[in-house]
Every structure is written in structure tokens, then in C-alpha cells.
């Protein structure tokens, strides 16, 4: 009897803490998003789902929704593809490995906003470093206006997103790689397995749980990532690089529609919750099988 209630009792304090930190703000958001609310967050009458219907009738919101999906897939996918080889190289024993690891981790140590500010300068059309470098290399004959339109701005933002996501992802993979015993590779090599076969049959399967963790954590993080896009283009020109969180910020703090902004926030929360639940479910089933 005692042994059955004890676990619950023991988790109760942390559950209580989680409730304060998570459920209370969500409850607050639900309140704001279902009411008519002034720009200072003071609630007026109950308005049901009016804020949500308004939101889904707004083409800018729908566009931002799709773009957020694209942004997340590209950044998370790109970071994963890049991080696996990087982690494998850093896991090998070579001279100067310590230094190489530090260099790869460096972007992580710099604040995201600062990284974005530096890139904004670097991508400036007339006085940016990237243009003058490309010019000196003879690759372009005319300055490219990187941030002037979404066609060039958004791909650059994705690339920077990948760059700042790689260190964290690599760290996870390095941890995974160091947990794979060397004898497996020795045995495989004895049997005549090529490097690619070793990767496919040993490294990849054993790294899979770590890849899953990297996907879930990065998706949550990138989906909500604000600084890169905000600093470089503020979601512009004409909302063409907006993702949900920059759209939310404009709604709330530029235009003062706190009700709709809270609705965006809840939609984002729901998307991430559903994604995480489905993904964890699938990943766990796979691991059990």
C-alpha cells in the first residue's frame, strides 16, 4: 500500500512546480485569447473563438505558419546532416582535436542576437563583408542586396540557423559516439566491412536514440527561435520572411492585438505538443521493436 502511493508523493513537489511554471501561463494565455482584450492586457468581455477565427482568416498568419514549418525542417534537417559527419570527425583521434572541438563549439558561446547582428552587417548590400569578399574573389561583379528580398534573405537566415544549431547537435552526437565501444568496429573490420558498411550497420543504428533526442529538442528550439529573423529582417520585407514567433511579436507589441497574439502562441504550443507526442511515440515504438 505504502509502496504504491510513495512514488506519487515523491513526484508531487516537482509536479507542483511544473504546474506553476507551465500550466499557469497556458491558462493565462487561454484567458486572454478567448476574451476581447485591450492593448495593455486588461480583459473585457468573453469573445469565444473570435480571436482564432480572425487569425485563420489572415493570409499573413497562414503564410507564416507554412514558413515556420519550412524553416524548422530546413534548419533542423540541415543541422542534423552536417552534425553527423562533424561529430564523427571530432570523435576520431587526431592532432589538434581539442582545438577543432573548441572552434566548432564557439558559435554556441556567442549570444544568438549578437550572431544575427554581425550577420546583418556582413550581409549589408553596400558595405557588407560578404559582398566585398565575393567581389574580391571575382565571383560577383555587382553587389547582391541580400536582405532586400525574401528570395535571398530567407535562405541566408536558414544557413545561419543551421550554423548556430550545429554545436548543440554535435555535442549530443559526440556523447552518442563515445558510448559506442571500439571493439564493434574492430570486429567488423576483421570481418572485412567497409567504412560505409560500418557506418550503416553500427554507427547509425547505435546513434539513433541520440538523433531522436536531437530532432525533438532542436525542433522545439528552432520552431520558437526569434533573434535571427527579427534582427535581420523583422520578418520583412512585407512579412515575406515572417515565422510564427515574429508574427506574434508584431501582433502583440506593434499593433497591440494581445488577444490574437495569445491565440498564435497557443497554436504554436499545440503544434509543438502534438509533434513531440507523435514523435516520441514513434521513436519509442521503434526502439522497442
Amino acid at each position: 500500500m505504502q509502496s504504491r502511493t510513495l512514488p506519487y508523493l515523491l513526484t508531487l513537489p516537482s509536479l507542483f512546480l511544473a504546474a506553476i511554471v507551465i500550466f499557469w501561463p497556458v491558462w493565462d494565455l487561454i484567458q486572454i485569447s478567448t476574451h476581447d482584450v485591450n492593448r495593455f492586457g486588461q480583459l473585457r468581455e468573453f469573445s469565444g473563438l473570435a480571436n482564432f477565427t480572425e487569425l485563420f482568416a489572415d493570409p499573413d498568419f497562414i503564410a507564416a505558419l507554412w514558413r515556420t514549418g519550412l524553416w524548422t525542417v530546413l534548419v533542423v534537417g540541415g543541422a542534423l546532416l552536417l552534425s553527423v559527419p562533424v561529430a564523427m570527425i571530432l570523435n576520431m583521434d587526431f592532432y589538434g582535436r581539442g582545438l577543432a572541438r573548441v572552434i566548432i563549439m564557439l558559435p554556441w558561446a556567442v549570444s544568438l542576437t549578437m550572431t544575427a547582428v554581425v550577420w546583418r552587417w556582413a550581409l549589408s548590400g553596400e558595405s557588407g563583408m560578404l559582398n566585398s569578399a565575393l567581389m574580391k574573389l571575382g565571383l560577383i561583379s555587382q553587389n547582391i542586396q541580400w536582405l532586400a528580398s525574401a528570395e535571398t534573405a530567407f535562405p541566408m537566415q536558414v544557413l545561419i540557423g543551421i550554423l548556430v544549431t550545429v554545436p548543440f547537435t554535435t555535442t549530443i552526437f559526440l556523447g552518442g559516439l563515445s558510448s559506442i565501444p571500439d571493439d564493434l568496429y574492430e570486429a567488423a573490420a576483421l570481418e572485412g566491412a567497409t567504412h560505409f558498411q560500418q557506418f550503416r550497420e553500427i554507427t547509425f543504428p547505435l546513434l539513433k536514440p541520440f538523433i531522436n533526442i536531437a530532432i525533438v529538442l532542436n525542433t522545439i528550439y528552432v520552431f520558437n527561435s526569434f533573434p535571427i529573423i527579427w534582427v535581420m529582417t523583422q520578418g520583412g520585407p512585407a512579412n515575406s520572411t515572417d515565422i510564427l514567433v515574429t508574427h506574434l511579436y508584431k501582433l502583440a507589441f506593434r499593433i497591440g492585438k494581445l488577444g490574437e497574439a495569445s491565440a498564435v502562441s497557443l497554436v504554436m504550443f499545440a503544434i509543438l505538443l502534438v509533434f513531440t507526442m507523435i514523435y516520441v511515440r514513434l521513436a519509442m515504438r521503434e526502439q522497442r521493436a
Partner: protein
Amino acid sequence: MSLAKWTVGLLAGMSMLAFAAPADAGEVRVTVAEYSAKTGPYFEAVKKEFEAANPGITIKYEVVPWDVLLQKLTTDITAGTNADLSIIGTRWLIDFVQQGVAEPLDGYIKPEFKDRFIDTFLSPSIMDGHTYGLPIAASARAMYYNKELFEKAGIAKPPATWTELQEDARKIKAQGAFGFGLQGKEIETDVYYYYAMWSQGTEILNKDGTSGLGTPGALEAAKLYKSMIDEGLTEPGVTSNNREDVQNLFKQGKVGMMITAPFLSNQIKEEAPSLKYGVAAIPAGPTGARGTYGVTDSIIMFKNSKNKDEAWKLLDFLFTKEQRAKFTQGEGFLPVNKEEAKMDYYVNNADLAAFTALLPDARFAPVIPGWEEIAQITSDAMQKIYLGGDPEAGLKDAAAKANGVLKK
């Protein structure tokens, strides 16, 4: 041992934070917008002088960058932790008044005090006959031109009309510089478009209260800017240049003309002292109509302030001639105080004279709820047009959206 010390220190720090929150009697908290690196030091000097003259009153500042000011005020007011006084954009004032956040100052204002102000700048802070704010900063826009580039291109004087401006821009382009600096990103992208629109005799709001964006004048103005972009008379990549970016190009001598605020003169003095430039009126349209943008920022008192009398004392002090002169000259704003405006500094300053001469043509942001949203709609529409979109369709769409906001 050392870990325990750490923990104790941390806990002590946290508890101090927790207990420091309630305001003391006689403490005046002020949210200050950071206009430049000089803003913080100026207000610190005010604190020293004021506290020495008024024992028992202490001042506490929160200096916030402009970009996040509205966000900070919104969250502070929502949480009920706002200061006693705050600087706000006067265009936000209507929201503060309608939601009952701003305290009317009529009870404190004596005729002598009111008489200190130049009416043009005080009137935007008056709503329904009540004064809700005092103009802490005032500014207008005029056209800067690069005298050296003008000379090289063989242009004798700054353009008086937009047609002349186009011709001059062509000549400057032939010299390898950018003719006209056009701002296409972030704050005041919409305002940069209004300069051309006002010169067509079109206002932001028509007489019947609908949006002016749907009128032929608005279309002419958009077509003018678009044709200049297409002809290569502006800097390339208009939509990637905010106000500071265009100003930087001007300081580097790469741009022939641009429209901006008086503070550029101060920046040039410090960063590019060898640049030869002049300040002229904003070009007029075919009928001679022209308009500049007038802006004031107001300092307001919050209704829930517990130390209103003390806060008023500070306001009274801030709006004396000496204090005003120090602040205005440091930041590069226009004088709002009548006596201050008579000082030699302003009377003998050719740059500032060009700005004050434009004041009769100044338009202030319309006092309507939802103004920020309409400004955003206009900026978005202009960005689309600058990127190659059809002006007619873009403006029609924007006008419909703006009218939707106006109807609410």
C-alpha cells in the same frame, strides 16, 4: 564550504530582489527612452541636481531602448508595475488615454507653465481639452543634400520640386553616386512615402475619415518612387535599408539627397566632420503642396502613480529653459520651449532654421486608435511596391485593409 557560501549569497540576493520591489514614499520612478548615448548621462545629471534641490524625493530611472519601449510599457501596465512617469510616443497616447492609464495634468498646469510651450508641439498631447502629456522631444524632417556631389554634378541649388529632384538625381547618378536615398525598412518606412504623398495634396486620412491610400494622389506618389527605383536613381536594395542605413550612406558621401531628422546634423558633426552638406525643404508637388512629418514624444504621468505631487515637481523642473536646452541640444531635437527657441544656439543655426521653417507644413501622426496597424499596413504595401509589385493593386489592397481598421 565555498558552495554553501555561494548558496547563501544567492538566496540573499534573491530575497533582496523580492523585497526591493515596493516603491518608497517620495520615490519617483521614470521610464526613459534612450534616444542616444547622451540620454542616460543627461538624466543622471538631472537626478543629482533635482535631488539636491528637493530633499526627500529620490528619482529612479529605467532607461529603455526605443525599439522595446512600447513592449516594456505594455507588459509593465499589464502587470501593474509601471513607473510614475514615462516617455511615450505621442502617437500612442490615445490608447493610454482611452484605457484610462494616463493621468490628466490640467490640475497641475498653471497658465505660466502652459505659456512656456510652443503651441504646435504641445497641441498633439491635448485630447478632448485635457492635457495628458508634455512634449519632451520634438522633431521634424527636412531634406539633406551633399553639396560636394551637387557641385560635381553641376547643380546650383537643392531641388524645389520632385520633378527637379528626379533630374538632379539623374545628374548625381552620372557621377557614380546614388541620387536619392530611399528608406524601405523598419520604423518610418511609411513616413518616407508620405513625403511624396503629401506633395500630391493627399492626406493620410481623407476628409470623410477613410484612408487616403486609395486616392489618385497616393498612386502618383507610389509611382514616383517606383520609377526612381526602376531608373536606378535610388540606392540599390531599397527594402534592406532602414533609416540608419540610408543615413550611413549619406555620411559616407554615397548618397546625394535624403530626408531625415535634425539629429543627422549632430551625427555628421561627430562622425563625418568633413562632409559638406546642406539642409533644405522637402520638395513640393505639382500644385506646390508639401508636407513634412512632425513628431513629438510626450512624458506622461500614470493614473496609478502614488507620488503624483513629487512626480509633477520633477516635470516642472524638466521643462525649465535650462534643462530643456541641455537636453534638446544634446540630442539634436527642436526646441519646444519659447524662451529656449530664442537662444543663440537655435537662432544662428542654419540647419535647424531649415527645419523650423518647415513647421507650418508639418503633419503629426493622426490621433486615431489603430494607427500603428495602419502604419504597418502602409509600410508593408510600400515594400511590396518597391520590390516590383503593381502600385495600383497594392494601394487598393492597403486602402481596403486600412479602412477595415478605421471602421472598428
